[in-house]
């Protein structure tokens, strides 16, 4: 057993900080006497920690979760480049079951935290749109896989850089993403071609939009289709965030500033 403990000691030796991911109350209390407050990353601040980073989406991918936590902590000036951080995280659900040693570096900034916290739209609007896209990806429309493109935030500019393909079903309606009825509506309308435009506060401005951004210099992986290209390009031209559900591989991807930021599989949620 001694070697096992040494192994763990090596992992946590000389760390500059600790990040706890969704700790339970009693787990957090054990850190009370520590010299430095641990950083808590969780959907809500249930343990009333002083240093807290809100986790908008319970990323199934642990790498994404840790990236998000570290980026959030860097944003709050809790860590800086070169710091070594121990992350206590749960890989298989339930209680904390693993410790990951990470060296903080600028190259870790993939923009996941930025995507939620510093977008034009409200963080919970982005989260709600993600949830809709994930739900849509899981169930599809009447059992068939569907694709969808949501452009969130900076709606005025997006509307000026797009044109209607047909009559807008959301004309003079005041529905917001996150309203319970909306998931059903969006699911029905997802068979329409074109993009959904969502405003900063989450109001669904339009469906059926044909986006007309200039696609020069958009850096998205080869092999993705026109929907992704349009979504990526509109985020370069405006301050919007695009959340795209792919019809062919069923993944949900988020674009910001013309770059692919996040890629998640709806089946994991």
């Amino acid at each position: 057993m001694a070697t096992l403990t040494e192994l763990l000691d090596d992992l946590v030796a000389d760390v500059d900080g600790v990040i706890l991911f969704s700790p339970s109350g009693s787990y957090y209390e054990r850190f009370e006497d520590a010299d430095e407050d641990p950083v808590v990353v969780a959907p809500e601040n249930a343990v009333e920690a002083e240093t807290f980073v809100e986790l908008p989406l319970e990323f199934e991918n642990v790498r994404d979760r840790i990236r998000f936590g570290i980026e959030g902590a860097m944003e709050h000036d809790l860590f800086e480049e070169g710091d070594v951080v121990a992350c206590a995280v749960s890989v298989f659900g339930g209680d904390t079951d693993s410790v990951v040693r990470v060296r903080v570096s600028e190259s870790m900034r993939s923009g996941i935290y930025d995507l939620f916290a510093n977008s034009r739209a409200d963080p919970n609007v982005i989260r709600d749109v993600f949830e809709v896209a994930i739900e849509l990806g899981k169930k599809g429309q009447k059992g068939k896989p569907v694709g969808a493109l949501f452009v969130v935030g900076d709606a005025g500019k997006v509307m000026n850089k797009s044109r209607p393909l047909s009559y807008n079903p959301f004309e003079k309606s005041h529905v917001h993403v996150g309203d319970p009825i909306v998931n059903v509506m969006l699911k029905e309308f997802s068979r329409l071609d074109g993009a959904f435009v969502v405003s900063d506060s989450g109001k669904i401005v339009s469906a059926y939009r044909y986006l007309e951004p200039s696609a020069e210099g958009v850096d998205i992986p080869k092999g993705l289709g026109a929907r992704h290209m349009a979504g990526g390009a509109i985020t370069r031209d405006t301050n919007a965030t695009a959340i795209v559900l792919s019809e062919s591989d069923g993944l949900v991807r988020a674009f910001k500033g013309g770059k692919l930021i996040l890629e998640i599989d709806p089946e994991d949620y």
Partner: protein
Amino acid sequence: MAQIEAYLDAVPARWWLALGILLLGVLLGYVVNVVNNRLLRRAGVPEAIEGTAFERMARDLGTSTVAILARLSMYFVVVLAILVALTIAEIRYTEVFWSQVVEFIPQVFIALLILIIGVVVGEKVELLVAERLRGVKLPEVGFIPALAKYSVFYVFVLIALSQVGVAILALVVLLGVYALGIVVLSAIAFGDMLSSGAAGVYLLLTQPYGIGDEVKMGQRRGVVQEIDVFVTHVESDGDEYIIPNNKVFQDGIVRIRR
């Protein structure tokens, strides 16, 4: 043996009846106690009033609000039974006194009930308001829940007092002044918000301009980013103007079509 029979014969039949009614009353009172206890619990009263100071105080005294209320209804029935028994026993010399008491006692019970309800409701209101304001991280809002609580107390005390027939005209006038003060103050304070809200409802219903339209208002020109009940967000070149909706109505807005 014969002596006891003689004593028993000396007691009038009415007294026996009165005794029976008294016993029946006590029994009925107990049943009412139990039934009320169950009903209140079934109606979810203990959960609804959990955390109020009255409930805590009752807990400290080894009882609970529900038990107190049920007990109160029991006493009411028992006292009523005693009065009926006394009337039937025809104890005449007390008649005048009792007739007044009979009228008065239900009022006292109702007043007591109202007071208890008032205390519980007031504290519940305080808790709810405090809960609602928790998101507002401002130490000064602490007095608003207390204000709400004492307003509720005041109204319930007034109702209880009027129930037992105390002259409360002056207190009612005070309440009126207080209510008027709140109405006038909020009319002044929220006047702009109300007119913005009214204008916003019109704008949302008819949508004379929508998100993405280019508009001009006075010197400001830009693209509409957001319309809600109170304000319209107009953005141009990174400047976001947040315009109250009543301003849109007073000054009008130019919609630029090209």
